[in-house]
């Protein structure tokens, strides 16, 4: 009998491995779509904000309200509310694919707000200087704002990814699979505390690794 088995008598390690894979798949898929949707939304929020390049107070007000509403709904409620939409998009309402829609809709507005904040950190003088050189808005976004805000954007991505880890675990409760589901089903409902310990430990390790990677990238891209 291996010491691992002695310590965690109830655990099926193959199941843990599958849950890890599921969590990573959910995380990867939802992160990809969160970035793809959240980055342009964040840029849009920034540009239309007060005193910015394309200040449009009314449009900004509407965008900002939508973002706030989506951010204020607890994720677990959001998942339930979004079931019809999830079905329409993916054909299923549970499982990894089913989880990705609510994960993205929960995380993209959050990420967009962080993007907006990161872009606001870019020195206004640098934007003015590029305007004085005859840059178009598109050039200002792609060649000035995004590169100058890169450390902030990487940090925003890290925070969002960590938040998504938490969301995926919650997704487990409504049948999305992954580590969260194991913790809930076996650890809580099945009263197998070793499942709880192992899944939580794995989630802690995952978050820790993500944060370290994010911090390393921020350091790499910082020029200030």
């Amino acid at each position, binding site marked *: 009998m291996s010491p691992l088995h002695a310590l965690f008598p109830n655990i099926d390690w193959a199941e843990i491995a599958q849950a890890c894979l599921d969590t990573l798949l959910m995380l990867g898929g939802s992160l990809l779509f969160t970035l793809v949707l959240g980055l342009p939304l964040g840029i849009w929020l920034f540009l239309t904000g007060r005193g910015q390049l394309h200040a449009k107070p009314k449009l900004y007000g509407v965008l900002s309200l939508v973002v706030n509403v989506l951010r204020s709904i607890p994720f677990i409620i959001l998942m339930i509310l979004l079931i019809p939409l999830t079905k329409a998009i993916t054909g299923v309402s549970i499982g990894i694919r089913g989880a990705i829609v609510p994960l993205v809709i929960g995380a993209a507005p959050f990420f967009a707000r962080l993007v907006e904040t990161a872009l606001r950190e870019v*020195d206004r*003088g*640098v934007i*003015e*200087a*590029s*305007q*004085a*050189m*005859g*840059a*178009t808005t598109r*050039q200002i976004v792609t*060649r*000035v704002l995004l*590169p*100058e805000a*890169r450390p902030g954007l990487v940090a925003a991505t890290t925070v969002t990814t960590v938040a998504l880890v938490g969301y995926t675990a919650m997704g487990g409760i409504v049948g999305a699979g992954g580590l969260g589901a194991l913790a809930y089903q076996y650890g809580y409902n099945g009263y197998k505390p070793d499942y709880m310990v192992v899944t939580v430990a794995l989630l802690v390790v995952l978050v820790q690794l993500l944060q370290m990677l994010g911090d390393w990238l921020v350091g790499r*891209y910082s*020029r*200030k």
Partner: protein
Amino acid sequence: MGAFHRSPPPPVIRFEAASKSYKVNGALVPALQPVDLAIEKGEVFGIIGHSGAGKSTLLRMVNLLERPSSGKVLVDGRDVTHAEGADLRRLRAGIGMIFQHFNLLSSRTVADNIAFPLRLQGGTPEAEITARVDELLKLVGLEAHADKYPAQLSGGQKQRVGIARALASKPGILLCDEATSALDPQTTASVLELLADINRRLGLTIVLITHEMDVIRRVCDRVAVLDAGNVVELGTVADVFLHPQHPTTRRFVAEADHREGRGPEYPGIPGKLFRLSFHGDATYSPMLSRVVRDTGVEYNLLSGRVDRIKDTPYGQLTLAMHGERLDDALAQLRAAGVDIEEVVK
């Protein structure tokens, strides 16, 4: 128009009753009263004023970072007040600008910062860009720093990168927004020397704004003094510096002479007080001693300064003079080109 009626070339920049107001909480607040001003090709034109006087607004109207609320802006004789889109970008590509806080891209190297406007504007082959960047690095003396990032440079070096970047697309006009205000005096001197050198060598028109009369004195040909959104004085630097008329101008000149806070009071000094201003060759000729010898007047030197306005020497002395032939002495000095003002005790 025939050969006999050739009109002079139009000024490089012309403001025609250009004004600016901002809306603050629904109320219109004037920042700049209607300004009429012509800046000639190849000159170094200074605009001096305190913060909030409107100088930054006036400077930014040239490349339309600020649009006039009324009036016109003409560049090279062309009305650009309402330029938009590609037209506006072309105008801006022909006008370089440097800033108080340099405004370099922190994520790009020195070489990439300098190449930035060329890459933005497109159409320049990469090999040509590299050659141009090398040439500019040499011009501003930063050959050894091409691959550094702005954060690795000193303030003076950053401003040199700013200057190189502003010159990359060979503009005809260079706008300087408080370009030396964040620099220490020694670095200020070297950056101003570089600007003067560029003006001489490239024939570039330079418009600079500052709140320091010393900057104006060192590099400018002409100066406009702005006070509360109005041009209160305009003229050659020598005229404005040696004979300031408006109270604001007088304060600026006093600051440059380090006389701030000291009133022109010399109690108990016998004789009348005069301020003698020399400009050009007269500065170094021994006319004062000659006149004193000839007329037998006596004088006390109370304060004085001999320096340069751009490349021309000048001197300004405050003297207490007395003697029987005082009027004769003053007349002789005036005849020799010395400007004399009596100072009220």
